[in-house]
């Protein structure tokens, strides 16, 4: 029977995370998405914009407009929101280290258009803490990063009251391997650190502090274990309620509500049989809508071809339709909470809360989340959890359909097209952006720019709120790189611990001692034959922050006997070649998921060549479409691995053979 429509709850905000090539192209995409029934915008920025570099900076090479839209100055922002009324739109920006800057551009644009900033609504992700742990677009050390978060909160609470200045993210922790308990614990520790910093800044009156608490929202993940995930969200709600009441004395329960947006798990989306991802995505969404009291406020879903490359408009449309089907066709929104009163659910929630509280205590004992990041503790815990997940997939304990079981498949009509079934970014986009930026630099008033930047530097030094001077910069036509560099000069830069130094003896080898033992023998024997132990450099060139693959390859390689050098993310091809030379490695393994593999691997090969290391074998892994894999091999890359190569032991066998072959030894071939 069709129930009366009026009793239904409002559905959540439906978004699609998107942006690419240029502000103009992204604007066109946003407008079509809105026409399709999307109710909010979610902006993906390119990596140079996220890490505070101009499009013509050497580190930006190959990355401009690739995984998101490049925004270099207020003119780009204007273009991005062309014909989109800022006062009526709800805009979410996935921006962190440069969040204060992008928000300033947005506010500056509103001012220019004569719109009162008090009417702006939306979200800046602005959780720089998890950047150190997972997402990788950090710039400054933790102290200044905390201050930037606090400054945006202090500013928006007073001047842009409908804005969510920060989205505390547990999403990215799960994408880096975190368990539900770790997600709960580390996100709540981050929230506490943020609130404590705001409180300590003294900018907010004590009486107004509950409003600050109310503005804190979260960005959460939901994986395949959807019952547990649903419980995790209920646990989040209960813990937040308790924490805000006790630690921050917020009396009004409405202000203590756990407000969150979601992107569902993408780590588990597969390259083999990618159509199965559709079921996965829908089930994952179920976890965040099922329980009314723990329902998401905003949802964005990945696309079925997530593990293949960037989604095309049609792929994104499909993902949006999943949400619409759930919200409009099912009866989900007609009921009160359907899980209340279930003892099974209550027990699971209690269980998660207990685990999370223990972990929070551990972090607090170490001096809080910042100390635990600086010491490497949390990153090590995450790398350890991810390692366990991968080992379970390798051993078959964790079944992934189409990957480690049920691999047989008919030919897929979905992947048959000529475009490789992914979105390809026109390489000319970078040139266009650089030209526009250079023209912009000529057209602005230099004296205004200088004065605005001086104001920014002064504010950074004196501790004055960074927002007013940033908005002045925005209006003066300052560029993203100039804003980033000015603060780099004051705050300095930071490289967090890589977390791969987990203790070798604290890990069980999953009852597969024989496998690893045999591998160790191969590694040791090959080392003896060559005269010294095999040494591997794992390199992450470019601005790409996807570290999971590199970390797990490094940990596994160490486990089977390699001496491993891994210096973390965001290195230039030159730095990688130099490290390969200085360290005297036998093999260079590049990990590139940003889509810039052609430019970056090519550059590393050239740099090695220039150092007399033309014969040093180079292999690459990451999101690399098959035809690019062939082109890389033609350039001289010896082997290419993608997510379908889930078995790290097999990759190790292969790596040993690549080294053997390049040194005139016989290949040993796959394990019997």
């Amino acid at each position: 029977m069709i129930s009366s429509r009026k009793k239904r709850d409002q559905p959540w905000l439906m978004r699609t995370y998107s942006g690419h090539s240029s502000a103009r192209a992204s604007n066109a995409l946003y407008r079509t998405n809105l026409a399709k029934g999307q109710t909010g915008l979610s902006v993906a920025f390119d990596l140079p914009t996220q890490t505070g570099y101009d499009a013509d900076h050497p580190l930006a090479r190959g990355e401009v407009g690739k995984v998101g839209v490049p925004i270099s100055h207020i003119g780009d922002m204007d273009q991005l929101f062309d014909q989109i009324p800022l006062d009526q739109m709800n805009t979410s920006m996935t921006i962190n280290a440069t969040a204060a800057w992008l928000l300033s551009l947005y506010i500056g644009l509103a001012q220019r258009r004569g719109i009162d900033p008090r009417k702006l609504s939306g979200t800046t992700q602005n959780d720089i803490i998890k950047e150190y742990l997972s997402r990788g677009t950090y710039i400054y050390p933790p102290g200044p990063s905390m201050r930037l978060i606090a400054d945006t909160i202090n500013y928006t609470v007073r001047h842009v009251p409908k804005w969510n200045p920060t989205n505390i993210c547990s999403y990215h922790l799960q994408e880096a391997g975190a368990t539900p308990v770790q997600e709960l614990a580390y996100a709540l520790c981050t929230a506490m650190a943020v609130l404590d910093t705001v409180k300590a800044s003294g900018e907010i009156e004590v009486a107004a502090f509950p409003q600050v608490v109310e503005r804190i929202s979260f960005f959460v993940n939901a994986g395949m274990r959807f019952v547990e995930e649903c419980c995790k969200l209920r646990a989040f709600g209960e813990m937040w309620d308790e924490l805000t009441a006790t630690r921050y004395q917020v009396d009004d329960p409405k202000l203590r509500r756990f407000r969150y947006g979601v992107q569902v798990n993408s780590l588990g989306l597969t390259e083999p049989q990618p159509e199965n991802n559709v079921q996965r995505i829908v089930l994952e969404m179920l976890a965040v809508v099922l329980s009314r009291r723990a329902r998401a406020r905003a949802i964005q879903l990945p696309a079925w071809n997530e593990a293949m490359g960037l989604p095309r408009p049609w792929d994104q449309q499909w993902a949006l339709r999943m949400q619409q089907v759930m919200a409009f066709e099912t009866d989900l929104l007609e009921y009160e909470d359907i899980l209340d009163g279930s003892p099974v659910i209550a027990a699971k929630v209690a269980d998660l809360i207990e685990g999370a509280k223990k972990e929070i205590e551990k972090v607090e004992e170490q001096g809080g989340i910042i100390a635990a990041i600086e010491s490497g503790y949390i990153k090590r815990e995450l790398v350890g959890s991810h390692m366990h997940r991968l080992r379970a997939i390798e051993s078959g304990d964790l079944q992934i359909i189409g990957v480690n079981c049920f691999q047989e498949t008919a030919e897929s009509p979905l992947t048959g097209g000529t475009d490789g079934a992914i979105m390809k970014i026109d390489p000319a986009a970078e040139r266009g952006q650089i030209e526009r930026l250079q023209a912009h630099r000529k057209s602005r008033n230099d004296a205004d720019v200088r004065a605005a930047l001086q104001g920014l530097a002064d504010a950074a030094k004196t501790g004055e709120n960074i927002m007013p001077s940033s908005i002045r910069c925005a209006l003066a036509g300052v560029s993203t790189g100039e804003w980033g560099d000015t603060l780099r000069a004051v705050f300095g830069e930071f490289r967090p611990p890589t977390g791969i130094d987990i203790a070798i003896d604290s890990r069980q080898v999953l009852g597969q001692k024989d496998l690893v033992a045999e591998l160790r023998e191969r590694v040791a024997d090959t080392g003896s034959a060559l005269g010294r132990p095999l040494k591997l450099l794992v390199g992450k060139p470019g601005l790409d922050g996807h570290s999971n693959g590199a970390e797990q390859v490094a940990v596994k390689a160490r486990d089977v006997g390699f001496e491993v050098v891994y210096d973390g993310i965001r290195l230039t091809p030159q730095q990688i070649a130099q490290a390969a030379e200085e360290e005297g490695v036998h093999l260079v393994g590049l990990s590139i998921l940003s889509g810039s593999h052609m430019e970056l691997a090519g550059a590393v090969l050239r740099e090695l060549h220039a150092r007399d290391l033309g014969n040093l074998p180079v292999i690459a892994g990451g999101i690399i479409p098959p035809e690019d894999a062939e082109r890389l091999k033609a350039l001289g890359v010896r082997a290419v691995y993608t997510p379908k190569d889930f078995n790290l032991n097999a990759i190790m066998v292969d790596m040993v053979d690549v080294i053997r072959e390049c040194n005139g030894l016989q290949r040993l071939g796959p394990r019997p």
Partner: protein
Amino acid sequence: MTQVKLPDPEQLALRILRGERAAVASGLNLLDNKLAEARSRSARLLASLSGEHWLDAGHLIGITGPPGAGKSSLVSALIRAWRSSGRSVAVLAVDPSSRPELGGGALLGDRIRIKNSSHDEGLFIRSLANRNQLGGVATEVWPMSWLLLTCFDIVVIETVGVGQTEIDIAEIGDTVCYVAQPASGDTIQYLKSGIIEIPDIFAVNKSDLGAAARKTAAEIARSASRQDRRADWDYPVCLVSAAMSTGIEQFRDHFDRHRSFLTNAGLLGKLRARHQSAWVVRLLKEEFGTFGLELAGGRTAVAERLSKGVLNQFEEYERLRKQILSRFMSVSRPSSPTKKEHPDEQAIV
């Protein structure tokens, strides 16, 4: 066996002396290589590199101390100071975390902590796993540091100081610095029990932590004063903070001062010659055991013989090696000891 391509040592030496980075890297690889052929080429490489400069060039610095005391961070701070005054720097970072007895390899993590992000051709970092099961500085570190001394102004060796290792570093560096962890009694314990030979310079890092660091510095100054020391060197105890970059200039100056002290007192050349002999003796002992050393006349005799050939320890080493090998043959024939020629196998017969 294999067709591993090994460089021509004499050619390589010329290129190293010209400061070619690729040659330096390849020289270090050769010195690290355990193949019999590589061993003899290593000896030739060292022989071609040796000369007067080996007794007076550059500055070889050992930095040791407990795990996590901030050695790498301090080295990084020192590098900034040295590089800004135009001095080239090479670092050998010996990794503490490898546990070869567990069968795994090593994660060489110091590099990231030493290196700042900017590209710099005047800085060269090589990380080494500590492959020695018993802890201590791998024997390769000695010749590697001498190679680096021929083409860098400053060579730093970073090792973790636990138990025996400090003795090793004292047998390598011109200047040894011990980095202490504030509020940890280890350093003082070691000093009192005489486990560590007194280092030339003490640094108490993390002075930003305040009172704890100052207290530790004061305690070290008190305990150290009871040790035997050279009358003419003052054994400074510095309070520094790598994180806040405080005290780094004075800290660096102590290194320069110590080197001047060694040269002025005519100690530098003697020290290096002694270290080189110690390495040769240790290498022979690792390769042939005490018994082998006996065959060459015993430790003292060997050391004496080496001290005479100050400028070319390595040719001397090759001669001793051959001598021991031929004695082996005559002692243990007919049980084909030549099979044991692979030096890695520690032929303790």
